[in-house]
């Protein structure tokens, strides 16, 4: 054997934990996406987003605002429920079902187990987030507004996009049903991926055609300002997924949910809690807990405003750091936990 061709010890060590970690993350992703709750919440979010332009009785002084704010709110609330539920179930279900013992008896460290679980859940959240972002962009496009720059302005609802958005979910379910029937494909995953594919086609079509149906590819056919705001929501979901993963190494599902709800409530009230007149414990809690207010910035889009990418980068870095800290604490807690 040629010693020069053999992998170094550090390379071998890296491969030693990367492959099991990737395998665990992949399995967690597949299992999470198969859960009925993921499919139902994603479909529910897309349907609710699709219906917002139908109920646009008040524009709040700005066309598309109701669709924007409503869709972002759905993405955040449903995403938080999904993040916490999926993350806590991923670990607790394995421990209760005995598969955690089987996994940890393999050359997989406990730290890697926790990390792999988190990565799998984060991957599932990414799928959810993308589906709702796509629906949000199309719904905002559908919302009633005055359009047309030549001659008389025309008030219009983009009814083609509306029809497409409303049909996306039944179409995705039909395709998934067909695949399940013919190839015994997993229905949940097929439906989610089908939905993403259909919505992506819709986005491409919306990019190419303007609101009056003319072929005019332009970036302003879609309100891309939504993307940075939605990225902040993804950062929030990832943060809470990390928190729930860390907590569920020791706590059962209900307790994890309660703690995450408390953290969310305090996080939304971070600014008042930080006021100098507040007692020390309140200010300490506000410093330690995530400042969720920094991630909910749909008001930044009011009146044509936008979110600078530097802010998004900083917020995502903050979320990543907080998530890593939470996961590190979770790993420490899991190291000495009895698995039985």
């Amino acid at each position: 054997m040629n010693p020069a061709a053999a992998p170094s010890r550090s390379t071998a060590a890296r491969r030693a934990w990367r492959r099991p970690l990737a395998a665990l993350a992949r399995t967690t992703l597949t299992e999470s996406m198969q859960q009925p709750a993921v499919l139902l919440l994603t479909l529910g979010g897309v349907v609710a987003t699709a219906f917002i332009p139908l109920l646009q009785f008040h524009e709040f002084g700005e066309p598309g605002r109701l669709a924007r704010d409503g869709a972002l709110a759905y993405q955040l609330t449903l995403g938080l429920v999904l993040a916490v539920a999926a993350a806590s179930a991923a670990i607790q279900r394995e421990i209760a079902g005995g598969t955690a013992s089987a996994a940890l008896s393999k050359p997989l460290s406990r730290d890697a187990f926790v990390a792999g679980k988190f990565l799998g859940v984060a991957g599932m959240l990414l799928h959810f987030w993308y589906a709702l972002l796509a629906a949000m962009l199309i719904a905002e496009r559908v919302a009633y507004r005055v359009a047309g720059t030549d001659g008389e302005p025309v008030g219009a609802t983009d009814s083609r996009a509306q029809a497409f958005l409303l049909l996306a979910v039944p179409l995705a379910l039909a395709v998934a049903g067909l695949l399940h029937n013919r190839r015994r494909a997993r229905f949940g995953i097929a439906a989610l991926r089908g939905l993403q594919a259909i919505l992506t086609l819709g986005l491409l079509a919306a990019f190419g055609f303007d609101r009056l149906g003319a072929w005019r590819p332009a970036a302003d056919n879609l309100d891309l300002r939504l993307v940075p705001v939605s990225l902040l929501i993804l950062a929030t979901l990832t943060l809470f997924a990390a928190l729930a993963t860390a907590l569920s190494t020791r706590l059962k599902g209900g307790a994890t949910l309660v703690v995450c709800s408390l953290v969310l409530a305090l996080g939304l009230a971070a600014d008042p809690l930080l006021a100098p007149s507040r007692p020390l414990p309140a200010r300490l809690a506000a410093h330690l807990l995530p400042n969720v207010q920094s991630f909910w910035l749909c008001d930044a889009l009011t009146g044509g405003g936008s979110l600078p990418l530097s802010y998004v980068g900083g917020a995502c870095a903050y979320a990543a750091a907080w998530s890593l800290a939470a996961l590190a604490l979770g790993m420490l807690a899991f190291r000495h936990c009895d698995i039985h």
Partner: protein
Amino acid sequence: MSRAVLAIARLTLREALRSRIVLLFGILLAAVAGGLPALLKGDGTPAGLVRMTLGYTLGTAFGLLVLATLWTGCALISGDIATRTLELTRVKPVAAWRLWLGKWLGLLLLDLLLLAGLYAVTGLAVYHRMRQAPEATAVLRTARQQVKPDLPALAGQIEQVFAREGGPALPAREQRDLRRRLRRELPFQPAALQRGQQWDWRFSLDAPPDPRRPLWLRFQFDTDAYTRAIVQAECRLTGSPGGGHVDFVLDDFSTRRFERPLDAAAFAGDTRFTLSVRHTGEASSGPLMLQPRQGLDLLVPRIPLALNLLRAAAVQASLLALIAALGLALGALFSLPVAAFCATGLLLATMISVFVAGDPDALEELREARRAPFRNLAATVAAETTQALTGLAAPALAPTPLRQLASAEQIPPRDLCRSLVFNALLLPAGCCLLAAAALRRRELAP
């Protein structure tokens, strides 16, 4: 009641009381019931603070209880199927409907316990506040019977206007649309009182008022802001002919809705009243506008607040019974995630529909969309779905106990009975039949 049903109910209650989640939820409810009154700032008046305490505290806590009941109902049977504990029960001599009934009774008992605790804590908070400002909150100590003026029956009025507008000659679909429009608009049709004119409205009570407590007249005028400063009305409330009367002047229309207390000592034994309102404002003042079906009430003190609280609790308990039944039925039909999703979706759709249906403008916009071409088919579907859901849910959602509590209005016994019969008996019985049929067919596979 059969021992089996009681055994299942006892088991359900026992499992719930030993569950940490129920304990945490109880703590959450206690926090809402105890903490929310402390946080409320009110509208600056003691009576306003009490009203908000009643409305917000009970409303928030009841909302949480509805969600918790719905999801627990979904989990009770579907969870037992998933954990296979239902197998050992299904092989026992217990009919499927008894199994459902036992679960429903157990959940209902738990709800009643939580609801009783909630009302007890809120009631204590309210009475504590009322003791701090007894005179300012005197109006809230007694719940008042809401008496509407004697007006022609709405159905008859609708037919009259229908005939007047040429309804019989229209095609069937347009006749239906016209009747629907009249049903929507006539209850809100205002009466206009020009300067120098007089309105006379009659009120009929089933029992004479207590002469020791004031009567109240509640007005809601559709008066434009620019006329409020210069409109004046001289009013007289008269009892039996030749009997007592009370005169008063209305000259402050700064708020659209207000109540006026009147001394009831002059009306001993009277059960028929006439309210005369004469517009005596300046020559340049506009008309007084009022919707008699919505904007005029005679409020007669009848029952103490405590009894009204009990009635409100009973109405809300009946709603919880319906919610529990719905959750259990869905749990018998579907797995837990699907049942919870369907239940939540149904609840949200119904709430949105009722909200939309309560806003005539919103509903009109949806209906207008029907007349547009295909591109608004989705809006048409939304309009019809809204109408259907509201129609189905109307009997269940008709009572508004919290609004009545906050307004110091008596919850009528008839509403209470209707809610109990419909929400706590008939609808749950339907859910029971549906669930039993599903359970009998459902296979508990290995």
